[in-house]
């Protein structure tokens, strides 16, 4: 059941000139959120911006055993992300959630490969923790425009996650898009062992990852981001074409039917 929390900003860490991680005191949401679920966020009370914006929950922060807060990974692009970038400790951010369908978390002996593009890293901290808790071997394939835009590498390394990095300018890891190392790693992978591929990032990347995975006979789960009005299934704005059992396709609301879909189910535009 989603709740609406007037969450206080505990911390706001700038990672670069446009990426930030904002820590929000929303324990009610943080304690029940599943990996890949999202919150609808509205900084400020006015009518501009009017609508909330969707954000994957990035980290769940605990002190001892107690869940205290959640964080959001944000990239400054529009009005809301600018407000989140500029927010200071003590500001209030309205936070509605948890919302949407979580990732289906695989167990050993299957391996998990998380494929992140840019700010698409966001859902993979909570997913990594869920995978680690099950003892599933986990790899993060993480691509960005440049090495300066690869964040939280130590966070993942410290948790025993194998990192495979790529940058479009070649400053770190493979030069090119994240599908370059994905293709190579899949060719090298053990055919006998199941690998579940999780992906989040720009939609063309999700399409490419889903196709690469399918070509190698691997299942994929992708977290899509569509323009979303309400997050609750009320407005029908965030639809994405999905295959149905009868061989047809229809628009499914990504807020309640997703944001996580099987890569094979989506009909890419």
């Amino acid at each position, binding site marked *: *059941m*989603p709740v*609406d929390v007037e969450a206080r900003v505990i911390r706001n860490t700038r990672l670069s000139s446009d990426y930030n991680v904002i820590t929000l005191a929303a324990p009610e949401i943080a304690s029940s959120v599943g990996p890949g679920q999202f919150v609808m966020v*509205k900084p400020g009370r006015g*009518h*501009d*911006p*009017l*609508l*909330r914006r969707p954000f994957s929950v990035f980290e769940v922060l605990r002190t001892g055993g107690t869940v205290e807060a959640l964080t959001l990974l944000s990239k400054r692009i529009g009005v809301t992300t600018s407000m989140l970038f500029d927010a200071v400790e003590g500001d209030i951010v309205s936070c*509605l959630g948890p919302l949407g369908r979580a990732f289906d978390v695989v167990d050993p002996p299957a391996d998990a490969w998380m494929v992140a593009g840019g700010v698409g890293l966001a859902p993979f901290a909570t997913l990594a923790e869920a995978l680690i808790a099950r003892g599933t071997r986990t790899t993060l394939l993480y691509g960005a425009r440049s090495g300066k835009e690869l964040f939280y590498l130590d966070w993942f390394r410290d948790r025993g996650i194998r990192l495979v990095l790529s940058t479009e300018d070649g400053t770190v890891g493979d030069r090119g898009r994240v599908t370059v190392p994905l293709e190579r790693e899949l060719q090298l992978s053990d055919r006998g062992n199941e690998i579940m591929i999780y992906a989040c990032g720009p939609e063309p990347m999700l399409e490419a990852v889903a196709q690469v995975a399918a070509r190698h006979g691997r299942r994929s789960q992708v977290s899509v981001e*569509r*323009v979303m*009005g*309400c997050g*609750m*299934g*009320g*407005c*029908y*704005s*965030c*639809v*994405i074409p999905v295959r149905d059992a009868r061989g047809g396709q*229809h*628009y499914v609301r990504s807020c*309640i039917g997703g944001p996580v879909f099987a890569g094979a189910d989506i009909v890419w*535009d």
Partner: protein
Amino acid sequence: MAASGCFGYGVEYADAIDLSTLGAVVSKGLFLAEREGHPPERIVETPAGMLNAIGLQGIGVHRYIKEKLPELRRLGATNVVNICGSTLDEYVELARILSDAEGVDALELNISCPNIKEGGITFGCSLHGTFDVVSAVKKVTRLPVIPKLTPNVTDVASFARAAEDAGADAVSLVNTFLAMAIDVDTRRPKLSNIVGGLSGPAIRPIAIRMVYECRRAVKVPVIGMGGIANATDALEFIIAGAAAVQVGTANFVDPFIWSKLLDGIREYLDRHAIARIGDLVGTIDLTSREKQWISS
């Protein structure tokens, strides 16, 4: 009341709120058949508002009756079903089918959706069309019939009169204002449908004026909506002449708005020593204001 198209079929919100506490759940607009609606982008935010061109994606009346209505009844919702037709016969058929279904409390006639080419608004933009569709539906149902009027006309009060003359039990207004937005970098429209309907706080003053005009033009109840975001906004509509109000866009921002609206309205009634909300309807004070002596 939760406004049509802004609350799914109602069941989507059952985990978050008690649907029986709402005045009514107005369903998403239903045709006889299922519809896919327009491709994304379907919404875009504008100053203090939003444009939408969903294109009435929907499950059709038969699936609504089978899949949604039993759940809505179990949850104690009051159900106003919003119906859309491409032809007059489709409205009549929908009204017939829904009159036989258990748990439907009223019909709202969508003759005002700005986003689809066929039917709908072509009735709502013609006085004869409005009269004909309301009288045809009235002939086949005992349910209260509430045509939802479009603001995209010069004189909305004349449409309220046409609806009343045809036997409407109430009128609801306003649907959204036909509008558009363009991305100046790409020079492309921001909506796939090019044009869409504007809703949200930006339209409220126009909606208030239209409710006020309709209240003076007809005797049947006027249901007001357009940009209500808090109790004060709802009270403004009621004082202008709305016997009930619907909330749409603000529910997207705050799905828990309903209890806040009720608390705010109750607090206002207490503060002004008004016993019943009905006593407030249309009580706009148009007498010339006495000059007050304000000592400084």
